[in-house]
């Protein structure tokens, strides 16, 4: 197996683990605040090895998430593609910033990310354009906070994994 394919598979493996953790590991009230591990992993790979991960990976894992989460098909796809693009566009700036700054940036990114889920695409409540309320905003805040906190350990874990397993072409 060529080095490139092996690297791709190793990267996809982490994304599948993220998907697994998101879907099956937390089945309690904590679920509403649990970080989206697949997205955090995608952000990490976009930052660490932007040439090894592409738009297709973001699109595919977005659609997988839609199928598993029951959201509109393509909804997570759009969000993952946009976040991947933003990460790839600004990865030079993001990669060199200290970890606490990265977490801070992700905190605001994830608050915005969560707010999109309150958009009422199915027109369930015709008097409103979105379903956001104070309780939802509180949940979004906690979700973003947990995501920001989890970023540092996840970053070190994935960095160790990358250095140990994902080898560069020589």
């Amino acid at each position, binding site marked *: 197996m060529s080095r490139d394919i092996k690297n791709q598979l190793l990267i996809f493996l982490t994304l*599948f683990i993220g*998907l*697994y953790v*998101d*879907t*099956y*590991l*937390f*089945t*309690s*009230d904590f*679920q*509403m605040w*649990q970080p989206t591990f697949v997205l955090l992993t995608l952000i990490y790979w976009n930052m660490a090895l*932007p*040439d090894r991960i*592409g*738009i297709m990976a*973001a*699109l595919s894992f*977005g*659609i*997988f998430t*839609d*199928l*598993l*989460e*029951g*959201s*509109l*098909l*393509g*909804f997570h*796809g*759009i969000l993952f*593609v*946009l976040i*991947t*693009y933003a990460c*790839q*566009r600004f990865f030079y700036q993001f990669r060199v910033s200290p970890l606490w700054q990265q977490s801070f940036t992700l905190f605001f990114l994830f608050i915005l990310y969560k707010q999109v*889920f*309150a958009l*009422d*695409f*199915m027109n*369930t*409540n015709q008097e409103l354009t979105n*379903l956001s309320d104070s*309780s*939802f905003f509180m*949940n979004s805040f906690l979700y973003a906070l947990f995501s920001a906190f989890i970023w540092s350990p996840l970053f070190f874990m994935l960095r160790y994994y990358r250095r140990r397993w994902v080898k560069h*072409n020589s």
Partner: protein
Amino acid sequence: MRRREHKVSYLSSEAIFAIPAMKPSKVILSLLVCSSLMLSDVYFESSSKIRGYAQDLFMPLGALVNIPADFLASIPDSLRTRSELILSLELVEEENKKLKVINQFLEKVSKENEELNSLWSSARLNFDNYSFARKRSISSNEFQPLLIVDVGSESNAGINDILLSPRGLVGKIKSLGLYSAEILVLHDVRSSVPIVTEKSKLHGNLKGNGIGRAGNIEYIKKTASFELGEKVYTSGIAGIFPEGIFVGEITSVDDLADSKFLEVEVSLMQSPFNQDFYLIYKNE
């Protein structure tokens, strides 16, 4: 070094080791693909046909969840000595004997109960139409929580069959695969259940408002009179949900000046988070 990983400077002919950014055209194409998928889902519910099978595809991933728990459970046993294991085995055997005696009594009681139950059930619901389902996962989507349950390959469950818990109605099957079913729970903003109240006998349509939120009864005229704490049951109108299944209790009735209708909130008793087993009822 691969060719696309560097450019050559026009001024100095030196290599610039920059990783090219994603092409905007690819991003736009992906966004268009996603948008068309979303539109087809909104207008034609196209994804409902494949979702059940997608859950089947991801089922092996779900089975992995038991591996860490089984591994952790096996650690204490592997650290115990032979004599300790024999002792615990003796205790378990003794307990087993006790349970056997208790079971004999229970069998007697259950036979009597069976007779009474069959009398009641023949007048109301057919027990052949029930099958068991086990919770596999629930999505973290606050407004559209999706409950996935395992249904046996021999189960005769179908789309729109209803899911029950000991505390009442949970939802209905939205999409079905070979081994999994997706449930549209009462809390989902897309859910709408025809209901009737216990005392005032007023009919309405119960809408979900998301996990952790009370549902509300729609389009209730201001002249209607509801009581707080009144129980709410399915009315059986429209034929999807059978009549008389417990749904929740009325927790607040507000007469807002800027609304043509009453604001009636219903607390939904059953949370899909706190239950592992359910019954699927095939409504005829």
